[in-house]
């Protein structure tokens, strides 16, 4: 066979994030997060039938479409005051968990951990173990993660027919009920992931791991062979030996909407969550309830039609207005909670939700790149446990309805919001319906919170803050930046641009 020479480059045109860094004597003194793509989903939604949100918004993201679908359906149900039967909420939660487990495992072991195989670390005692476990396409944990995560979203396919971009949640419930065959199939998927997670990721049973409640005991446990040899133990040893537990905390304030609607205490006017949501005030170190009215978005440094200060999403707008050669630098808005910059994600979810180990580690060492990543792996255990409970509840209540179809007359004009915890953190959809069509639609994604630019007051966003002060040994190969960027689980490929040297490096999520 003749050799064919073609320049094969199958990269897709995709929206990117860029981070522009200024280094001063090897230390980051300034960081700007640049959203290089105008997306415009909010503009697409205007004037459409409200239920179109269930088909269009899951396309916002190819990784977390279930989360967008869930937010969209909650926003409609909130506007229409639609009752939702408990089984529907259980099925929605189960699917969201499946998507979350896939994301958390892939993000940790396909994207974050492989950075420890960087040749610069070859003198470290853990290096050979890291290469054996995490090297892309070769490492044992890397390969096992690929194989295990293929199965997780089969759960979504059982109820939604497909993953990603499915539209099976509709106002009043879901389109497909649970039956014994589906539950059995879901149980088998979860059982296999759990066995692997216990054996390979944490080196302990799920119950023992979840019972571990304070930092001291975790550090002692980290020294035991079972955990030290596990994937999480190895990742923790490597990350901590590089000081990732002491840096890149970013903003101290955190926001969680609470994980998983409580099936029995859900649908308007109730808003109970299995893991409570709230706002963690990094100044006082206290958790309190959050008020969605305090959420607002600024465009002072963004390429949108200018307005003063911040606007609540119900009054928000997303009108593109590219202004090059100004101090505006991104297609992302700057969401704020009151006047505070917040971070969101698994760390916020578990800290605010009351996970004792995360709270203890946070108290002992503060937030950090390592703790964000550690919390992501910890959350998988919480998700697996919750998923098992959901399957038990569905089995015990098989005869109950999966949908209460609202009468057409209930689909009135009004306003609503749907707030959930997606894999990457707090996700919200806000809408206003007028004359039977969508008048306004606003989406604030987790990455919008975390990767936000400066606001009207000039306050940098969470990532921007987390990078300042970081020492970079080699500006042409800033592996330190990679650890921090990936610990935020960016939802887009992120290009880091070192302004002083012109170096450009791309980091995947």
């Amino acid at each position, binding site marked *: 066979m003749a050799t064919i020479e073609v320049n094969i480059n*199958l990269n*897709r045109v995709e929206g990117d994030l860029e981070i522009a860094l200024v280094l001063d004597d090897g230390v980051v003194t300034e960081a700007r997060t640049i959203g290089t793509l105008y997306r415009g989903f909010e503009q697409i939604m205007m004037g459409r039938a409200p239920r179109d949100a269930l088909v269009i918004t899951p396309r916002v993201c190819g990784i977390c479409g279930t989360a967008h679908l869930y937010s969209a359906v909650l926003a409609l149900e909130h506007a229409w005051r639609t009752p939702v039967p408990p089984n529907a909420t259980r099925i929605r939660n189960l699917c969201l968990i499946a998507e979350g487990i896939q994301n958390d495992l892939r993000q940790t072991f*396909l994207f974050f951990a492989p950075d420890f195989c960087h040749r610069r670390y070859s003198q470290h005692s853990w290096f050979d173990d890291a290469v054996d476990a995490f090297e892309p396409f070769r490492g044992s944990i890397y390969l096992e993660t690929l194989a295990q995560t*293929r199965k997780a979203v089969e759960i979504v396919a059982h109820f939604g027919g497909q993953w990603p971009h499915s539209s099976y949640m509709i106002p009043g419930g879901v389109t497909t009920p649970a039956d014994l065959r589906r539950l059995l199939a879901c149980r088998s998927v979860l059982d296999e992931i759990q066995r692997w997670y216990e054996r390979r990721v944490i080196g302990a049973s799920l119950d023992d791991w979840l019972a571990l409640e304070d930092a001291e005991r975790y550090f002692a446990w980290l020294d035991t062979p079972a955990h030290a040899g596990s994937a999480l133990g190895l990742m923790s040893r490597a990350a901590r030996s590089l000081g990732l537990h002491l840096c890149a905390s970013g903003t101290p304030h955190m926001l969680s909407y609470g994980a998983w609607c409580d099936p029995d205490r859900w649908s308007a006017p109730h808003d109970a969550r299995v893991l409570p949501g709230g706002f963690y005030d990094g100044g006082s170190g206290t958790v309190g309830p959050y008020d969605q009215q305090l959420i607002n978005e600024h465009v002072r440094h963004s390429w949108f039609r200018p307005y003063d200060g911040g606007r609540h999403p119900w009054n928000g707008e997303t009108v593109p207005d590219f202004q090059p050669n100004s101090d505006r630098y991104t297609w992302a808005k700057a969401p704020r909670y009151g006047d505070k910059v917040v971070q969101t994600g698994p760390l916020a979810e578990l800290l605010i939700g009351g996970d004792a180990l995360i709270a203890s580690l946070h108290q002992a060492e503060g937030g950090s790149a390592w703790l964000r990543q550690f919390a992501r792996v910890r959350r998988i255990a919480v998700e697996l446990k919750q998923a098992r409970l959901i399957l038990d509840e569905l089995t015990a209540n098989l005869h109950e309805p999966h949908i209460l179809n609202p009468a057409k007359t209930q689909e009135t004009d009004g306003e609503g919001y749907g707030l959930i915890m997606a894999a990457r953190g707090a996700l919200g959809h806000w809408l206003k319906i007028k004359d039977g069509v969508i008048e306004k639609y606003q989406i604030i994604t987790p990455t919008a919170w975390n990767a936000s630019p400066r606001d009207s007051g000039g306050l940098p966003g969470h990532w921007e803050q987390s990078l300042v002060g970081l020492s970079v040994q080699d500006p042409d190969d800033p592996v330190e930046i990679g650890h921090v960027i990936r610990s935020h689980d960016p939802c887009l490929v992120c290009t880091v641009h070192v302004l002083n040297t012109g170096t450009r490096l791309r980091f*995947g999520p």
Partner: protein
Amino acid sequence: MSNRQLCHIVCFGNPLHGDDGFGPAVYQRLAALPLPDNVRVFDAGTPGLAALALFQGCHEVMIVDAVASGGIPGKLSRLSPNVVTAEITLPGHGIGVGYLLKAVAALPDCPRIEIIAAEILGAAPFRPGLSKPVRQAVDDAFVLLEKYAEQVSRQ
């Protein structure tokens, strides 16, 4: 279990981006055919690792995709997956078929894979529509895959 050969034809690409719509255009033509029941055709879009599932439960996968031009736009090639290099970018939303193929190859139940690739004239972002040479390549690929499906049905 039957020993019958199961084949997936997996078409990649984004029809909004000029000639990158080659794969989806071939899909449209194939999907209109009454294909044998051991051949399944998929419009995969640009999914990255989400497409891993399309490489499971079958013996062979024919990938249909666009490649950057080596000088003859519209030229159709049958390539082996090992000539496709992984992208410079790492996975996530920026993952490409190269990374996906490496991941498939690393898994124990990897099917046989062949790539039907058309060299493109251009893939300008958000300029839908195929160039003339790539439209011709769609016709050629369709004829080739129709024959292929016929062969598979006899196996």
